[in-house]
């Protein structure tokens, strides 16, 4: 179990570092989160996703275990 934990943590750490580096490069090279959101909203209906997350089907079980989506 210890070995498995080590492998998972090391893999996650490497992936996180890689992701942060790529994120940093994107920001430095002129990327804009607003532009990304506008383009993504053309493909995804975020309102529908938000309604689903706040629906009783999801909020009910989460509320029973003490969780809540803001």
């Amino acid at each position, binding site marked *: *179990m210890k070995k*498995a*934990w080590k492998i*998972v*943590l090391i*893999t*996650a*750490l490497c*992936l*996180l570092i*890689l*992701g*942060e*580096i*790529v*994120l*940093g*490069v*994107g*920001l430095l*090279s*002129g*990327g*804009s*989160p607003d*532009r*990304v959101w506008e*383009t*993504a909203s053309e*493909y*995804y209906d975020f309102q529908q996703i938000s309604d689903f997350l706040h629906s009783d089907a999801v909020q009910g079980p*989460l509320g*029973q*275990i003490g*969780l809540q989506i803001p």
Partner: protein
Amino acid sequence: MEVTVINRQSYMAEVSSLLGLITDEDTRTSLIAQMEHLFDVAEDEDKLIQEIGNPTKVAVALIRYADRGVVTPTAAAVVAPERAETAHTEPAEPVNADAFHAVEPPQAAEAEAETPVEAGAEEASDVPADATPVEAEAPAAKAEEPSEPTGEEAPPAEAEAALETALPTDAEAAPEAAAEPIESGTDGEAVVALEAEIISEEEEPDETAEEAALELEDQTEDDFDDVPTEADDDGAPQTITKTNGLLVVLYLIPAIVIGVPVFLALVVLNLALFAIGVGALGAGVGIFATAFLGFSVVADMLLLLGGGASVFAVALVLVWLAIWFLLRVTCGWIRVVVRLGKRFCCKEVEVV
């Protein structure tokens, strides 16, 4: 001294076979040649055999002489017969092994009888530095051999006189003779003792290593043998587990009251963790996939790719945490309840 009826041929055959322990062939050949010469010059062979002793004793002394250059009275009887006679009458002088010089052939010794020490020094200098005294003697002995068939035999007395000054004195030989255990032992014991002495020096490290390995194997085997096992434990009494029904009922009530809610809480917590982990995994994959939807700016794509990878890493840890929680905490709680119950309700009874 033992008196054995033996002729020259038998005597020389036995000595030659025993001298096979000497690894250096030249030394062995020279010693055998000296023995032969001794018999050649002797007036009475039987008397000579009686004087020098049994062949085993002589061979052992010669081997020691070849190995370490130590001249015992027995060896001196062969390599320096006249000196061996005077050793009993003259007082012993301090011996230096380095003072030993090469033995010269009789005809050379006759020419150099006036300055035998200097000639010996020259002979020694011609010989390699690490050569033993007997090895230096070997060329002289070899030169001596062809001289015999030609008939030019130098008087043995003059050759022996050269040997007297070349060989170390018997001061060392006297205590050596006194301390020599082989002299007093039987033939078989003498040979065995010397062979063991020669061989043991070479094989001792191997033997000790082998012995240590064997001891370790024996020890580990003993250790394994000493570990009690159920199959081998014939001496200990056999036991069976008996369950008390009343105690089981008594235990079940609090076990259910306390154990089940705790178990359910742990399961719910586990499911929540798992849900969060799976959700994060889905979000990471979704963000990653969005980068390839149709963004025109590469920088925006990089933002999405980097963000997706970061979320995926966190999700991985969360999912693994959920699995670990299930295996260790939830299943561990069940194991604890069952173990407590066994300890409370079951008892081991010896079977008579």
